């Protein structure tokens, strides 16, 4: 008897559920159809982008062709969409070394005028930095920087350490190069780390530092750049081809600031 009753209840509930679904379908007449390719959003997780072709003809003489990236869909976005919310960060400027967030309110930034509200923040921990970096003169102590430090730095960031207001709308770029900002990479303009070696001038060395990104959709991600040279060489020189960005990122899609993602 009990089972009979519950069967009835289940049937009734199913019926009601079906009718609700039917109703909601009818209400969707005015839904906005996203034209073009269907976009698929990534799940919370860690993603690695290897040898992403930016501007392979880039030289140290001028700005490279910029590369727009959508972290939530894990894909490159054409430059014509720079004033839209279709991307989160751009690899901009010399050797694609300036990482700008998509922020339409930031005058002079690539997304200016558009709807973007992304922000970024470079995480620096001087105690950690001391392992590979002269924290007074802002340059690497010795090269190559051990690879495991990238894992350590990446895993050490378990949450967003600052409020949104502390995150910036300008670029994260080359470390203390013509500025006073901590950056993601060291640019050895004169080759001073390797005196007398002409193949070591104008070389960019990535540093094990995490960039926190608040995406245009409001999710948080941590990004770490491993290299801008092809095939991720540990100790690049002028023979290595720039314009191939290798980076890793973890994105939290549940809206929280939890970046302890495995």
């Amino acid at each position, binding site marked *: 008897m009990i089972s009979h009753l519950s069967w009835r209840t289940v049937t009734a509930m199913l019926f009601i559920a079906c009718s609700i679904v039917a109703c909601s379908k009818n209400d969707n007449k005015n839904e*906005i*159809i996203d034209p073009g390719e269907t976009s698929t959003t990534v799940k919370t997780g860690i993603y690695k982008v290897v040898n992403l072709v930016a501007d392979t003809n880039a030289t140290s003489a001028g700005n490279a062709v910029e590369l727009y990236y959508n972290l939530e869909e894990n894909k490159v976005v054409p430059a*014509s969409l720079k*004033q*839209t919310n279709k991307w989160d960060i751009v690899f901009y400027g010399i050797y694609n070394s300036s990482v700008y967030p998509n922020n339409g309110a930031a005058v002079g930034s690539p997304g200016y*005028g*558009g*709807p973007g*509200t992304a922000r970024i923040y470079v995480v620096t921990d001087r105690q950690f930095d001391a392992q590979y970096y002269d924290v007074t003169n802002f340059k690497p102590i010795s090269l190559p920087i051990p690879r495991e430090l990238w894992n350590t730095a990446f895993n050490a960031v378990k949450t967003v350490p600052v409020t949104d207001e502390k995150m910036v709308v300008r670029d994260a770029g080359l470390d203390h190069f013509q500025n006073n900002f901590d950056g993601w990479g060291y640019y050895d303009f004169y080759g001073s780390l390797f005196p007398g070696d002409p193949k070591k001038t104008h070389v960019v060395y990535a540093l094990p530092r995490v960039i926190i990104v608040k995406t245009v959709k409001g999710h948080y991600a941590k990004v770490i750049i491993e290299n801008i040279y092809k095939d991720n060489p540990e100790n690049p020189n002028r023979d290595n081809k720039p314009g191939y960005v290798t980076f890793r990122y973890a994105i939290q899609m549940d809206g929280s600031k939890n970046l302890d993602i495995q």
Partner: protein
Amino acid sequence: MKKIYQRLAAVLLIFSACTKTETIPFTPEADNQLLEYKIVNVQGTPIYGAINQADSSVTIYLPFYLQLTILEPELKVSDGATITPASGTMIEDLLDFFRNGRTIKYNVKGKAGNVKGYTLHIQVQQPDLTVKEITTDPANPVTYNIDMKAFFDSFSFTLNGAGFASNLDMIKVVLVDEQNKEYGPLDISQFNTTDLTTLSFSITQYKNMSSAILATLPATGLYKVRIYSYAKVATTQNSIRINLLNK
């Protein structure tokens, strides 16, 4: 007093008695209308377009300072109607739209299959663009020579005016010959980052690093200078002369 009220009541009754209920067949609202047009790829409040049902047009007023080169419209149409291009379809390369013009049309198809076409107009609220003459006496055009056989040669000139966009990506400068043919664009000097009333150009002949425009210019010619700055265009009245020596 009572009488007055009675009369008043009588009058009212007469009027109401005269009121006749007449049924006039109404024209149903068209089922193929564009009801809302807004540009959403901006900060904060979207930019709403003004829809004119009578002449089937939409006008959007774009602020100049945003320097938008792409628009993402979000559209609403009558219940059950469809629109092409669909809501969210980007309007790309606005600079080309301003400079060369193109028709942007939306077709709304109602339930019954009737189609209404809307034309999009874009009005940019941009300050006037003006240029000062390089040649002040038309009888004596300012002349620049460049020796195409020399190891290296170059000349440079400056265009002054007002209303130049602050972002050089929004600016294109060309030379215009007497047949109204355009040459260029000219390479704009990037060194000036503070003065919005001046643009400088340097034309160089040196091995394989020569300015691209030299390959297209004839040996001699008279050219007006034309500037496209975002949605506006201005051209000098008088011409300058450019001679490519030994070409």
